[in-house]
């Protein structure tokens, strides 16, 4: 594979910043809602802020090649910190702000971080807690001054003080900064991102400027992103997607990135900003749909009738319209009427009126959820990617959007499937290496540049669309040799609004069984409507009526699983509703909310045994970790119920 030549004038972020500060000088680069008002910074202002911070960090002694950890919620200041670190020749390492102190300490230590830029006191505390084991940390810079007054400020610096220091020393420091920025090229490290770690410890993925700028350029072209687009930055800054959208594509195209006031105000802020380009995990779309459905149940009879009437029509013609297929005139007119009366106002309420391109990825999305958005005329598409690929491996072009595939290989990405069904790819976006971990690097990326994804899938004949079955590690065989793909069933179950999370077991066993996590919002609302009193999550989860309704959902899923010849063995025979929500703080799911099967299997071994030994209830005690790292335990007696299954169809030849 020959390396595409990236314009050497635009092969690093400091260079892109310099270009944007001239080309889009007075266009907004970043917005943030603070004190109830949208504050905005133009590209030239952003450049000024970034340089001041960079100069300040030089004054504090930041060296080229140092790792700078950035921890906090999405704020323009922290995005500037990333570029400021790059300008100094250092490498930004964004971390998940909700990591526990131990997780954070591990990453800080592994990366040998010297400078930390923290959003607030909470993050500073986590770093200070671990500092005894972290001799490498020299300086901490914090953004929000609240609660910081009493700290020992020997190595603690307020963000604005660092900037002031930088501005003051600008004659002395500017030549050094210029020299550091000039030394960078397409192959210098752009950022180091830690994987969420579905299996084992997180790994530091080293990405070069070439990786990120290539991915940003080709994806911007793919969806025709321009300077006038608008995005909302609300996904974790440590996640590769956010880095590509809020830094990569933002710098490449010059569009404006808006940061919400707080995590809770995200949906109102999204509505105010009217993003045109939007990215969210399936869970987000599920959540919005659930809340729409809950609110519709409270609406007047007329509105309920209108909702049902027009949604039925949208399901019929919405998708063909979006895909540009021919639709009868009468149906078109009815859809237009629906748009005025219902679709338009609904899209406005959920903040998606202006969404031109929307993506979902990370997990499979329920067909009905996907259908709902597309039939409303929201161009929601799926993409398949991972950190190591700078996101893009496959994505759906406009007009070829389907629910069961993830699209065709992204431009410039080669994809092949090996004999065992595992997906491999090769592209300019493929990562450089895992930091300080040559074994893992060698395991994942071969000398020719092919990277193993760890996912199993196949290309559909005829269309060339890629279908993902499951994580290669999770796909296996049941005792009778039929195929076991837990995620296939889990995704079907998770479509029901009252099921938040589920884990299906059955590898090497006669039958499949499942753990269910209920969605407290949906089930709580249902309980209220049906006069069911409950005092806690645990009590609600164990309620016989809840069991009854979950059971009926599973039976429905069994029916639909039975129709798939290859996977009909995955029907669920028994299930239980977990007494606690699976939580990243307990290590049961990752920070990006992917299930960690092995940990769950160990932790709940007694419950799994109950599922298979015919018990009707199991008494158990579970350790829980609170947000601040303290531990406690929950005792519960969990009921187990049987479910009706459908006779398997004869295996297709």
């Amino acid at each position, binding site marked *: 594979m020959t390396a595409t030549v990236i314009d050497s004038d635009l092969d690093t972020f400091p260079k892109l910043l310099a270009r944007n500060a001239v080309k889009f000088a007075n266009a907004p680069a970043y917005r943030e809602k*603070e*004190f*109830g*008002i949208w504050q905005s910074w133009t590209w030239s202002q952003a450049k000024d802020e970034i340089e001041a911070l960079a100069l300040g960090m030089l004054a504090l002694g930041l060296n080229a090649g140092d790792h700078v950890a950035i921890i906090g919620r999405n704020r323009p200041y922290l995005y500037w910190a990333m570029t400021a670190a790059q300008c100094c020749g250092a490498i930004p390492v964004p971390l998940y702000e909700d990591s526990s102190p131990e997780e954070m300490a591990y990453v800080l230590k592994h990366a040998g971080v010297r400078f930390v830029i923290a959003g607030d006191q909470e993050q500073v505390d986590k770093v200070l807690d671990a500092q005894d084991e972290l001799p490498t940390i020299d300086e901490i810079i914090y953004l929000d001054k*609240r*609660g910081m*007054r*009493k700290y020992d400020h020997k190595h603690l610096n307020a963000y604005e003080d660092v900037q002031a220091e930088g501005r003051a020393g600008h004659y002395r420091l500017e030549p050094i900064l210029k020299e550091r920025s000039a030394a960078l090229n397409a192959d210098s490290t752009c950022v180091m991102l830690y994987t969420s770690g579905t299996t084992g410890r997180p790994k530091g993925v080293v990405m070069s400027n070439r990786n990120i700028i290539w991915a940003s350029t080709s994806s911007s072209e793919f969806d025709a992103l321009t300077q006038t687009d608008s995005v909302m930055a609300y996904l974790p800054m440590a996640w590769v997607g956010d880095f590509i959208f809020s830094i990569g594509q933002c710098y490449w195209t010059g569009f404006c990135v808006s940061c919400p*006031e*707080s995590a*809770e*105000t995200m949906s*109102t802020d999204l509505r105010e900003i009217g993003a045109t380009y939007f990215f969210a995990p399936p869970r987000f779309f599920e959540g919005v749909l659930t809340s729409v459905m809950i609110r519709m149940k409270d609406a007047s009879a007329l509105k309920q009738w209108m909702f049902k009437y027009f949604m039925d029509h949208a399901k019929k013609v919405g998708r063909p319209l979006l895909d540009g297929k021919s639709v009868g005139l009468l149906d078109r007119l009815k859809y237009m009427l629906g748009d005025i009366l219902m679709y338009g106002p609904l899209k406005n309420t959920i903040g998606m009126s202006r969404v031109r391109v929307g993506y979902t990825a990370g997990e499979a999305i329920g067909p009905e959820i996907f259908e709902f958005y597309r039939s409303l005329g929201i161009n929601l598409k799926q993409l398949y990617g991972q950190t190591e690929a700078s996101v893009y491996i496959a994505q759906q072009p406009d007009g070829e959007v389907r629910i069961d595939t993830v699209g065709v290989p992204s431009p410039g990405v080669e994809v092949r499937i090996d004999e065992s069904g595992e997906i491999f790819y090769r592209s300019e976006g493929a990562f450089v290496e895992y930091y300080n971990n040559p074994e893992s690097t060698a395991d994942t990326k071969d000398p020719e540049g092919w990277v193993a994804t760890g996912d199993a899938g196949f290309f559909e004949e005829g269309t060339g669309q890629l279908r993902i079955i499951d994580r290669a590690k999770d796909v296996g065989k049941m005792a009778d040799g039929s195929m076991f793909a837990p995620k296939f069933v889990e995704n079907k179950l998770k479509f029901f609004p009252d099921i938040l999370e589920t884990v299906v077991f059955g590898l090497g066993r006669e039958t499949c069984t499942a753990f269910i996590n209920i969605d407290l919002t949906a089930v709580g609302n249902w309980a209220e409507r049906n006069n069911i009193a409950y005092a806690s999550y645990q009590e609600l989860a164990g309620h016989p009526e809840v069991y009854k309704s979950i059971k009926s959902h599973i039976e429905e899923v069994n029916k639909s699983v039975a129709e798939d010849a290859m996977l009909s063995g995955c029907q669920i025979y028994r299930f239980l509703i977990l007494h606690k929500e699976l939580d990243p703080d307990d290590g049961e799911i990752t920070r990006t909310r992917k299930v960690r099967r092995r940990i769950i299997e160990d932790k709940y071994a007694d419950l799994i045994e109950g599922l298979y030994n015919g018990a009707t209830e199991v008494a158990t005690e579970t350790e829980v970790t609170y947000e601040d790292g303290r531990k406690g335990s929950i005792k519960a007696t969990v009921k187990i119920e049987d479910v009706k299954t459908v006779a398997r169809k004869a295996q297709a030849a």
Partner: protein
Amino acid sequence: MNATAESYVTEDGRTIGAPVMEVKNITLKFGGVTAISNISFDIREGEIRAIIGPNGAGKSSMLNVINGFYHPQEGEIWFHGEKRKPMKPYQIAQQGIARTFQNIALFKGMSTLDNIMTGRFTHMKTNMLKQAIWKGPAEREESLNRDIVEHVIDFLEIQAIRKTPVGRLPYGLQKRVELGRALAAQPKLLLLDEPMAGMNVEEKEDMSRFILDVNDEFGTTIALIEHDMGVVMDISDRVVVLDYGKKIGDGTPDEVRNNQDVIDAYLGVAHD
């Protein structure tokens, strides 16, 4: 702690100044019932002062006396070195004393923002005519006050409920809004009547954090009534203990904890 000195610095680096308020020999009677009898204590600048006691001890009455809602039959209140004349509660609010209530007293149909804006009322100077004309002074005043209110909203992390009618909020958040309204008045002395009553552990932790932060960030002097002993002992600098309208203890949390009269009042004593 050195109680005799005019001012001192606490272990966590806060400066506690001279007394801002002195309550001297207060007696309050309702007909034949003596709610408070001959109580004296002081509140120092910058401290968190707790008033505790069993039910019916006279805690809320004491707060109402400080607040000017009740007028005691005997005794004096000195505020900022001056003896206070009998005043109406709104005049006391103008002096820089704000409070929250045991049973939430918000305007249920109004939004969080509007409720907190009412806390700025004593600071608004424009008259009804200017308000009606709006352009000019009234508009400037409104945006100035809105700025202060927005900082309070940011401080209490309630941006997400800015526009929500208060009546729809859960109890813990309503309590926080009420604290917000008191803070919007930018008080010198903040009176909190059972800020944590009816809250769960997490809400209590949040509220404790906010009380400490208010005291630390703005240097606001705080007097609070609270039943949760753990909270009181954790966050307050000094505690005064009332029982049946009498003062039975006064001092640091440790002193109070080891005071035999206090232990008896809380755990009960054997009567012959």
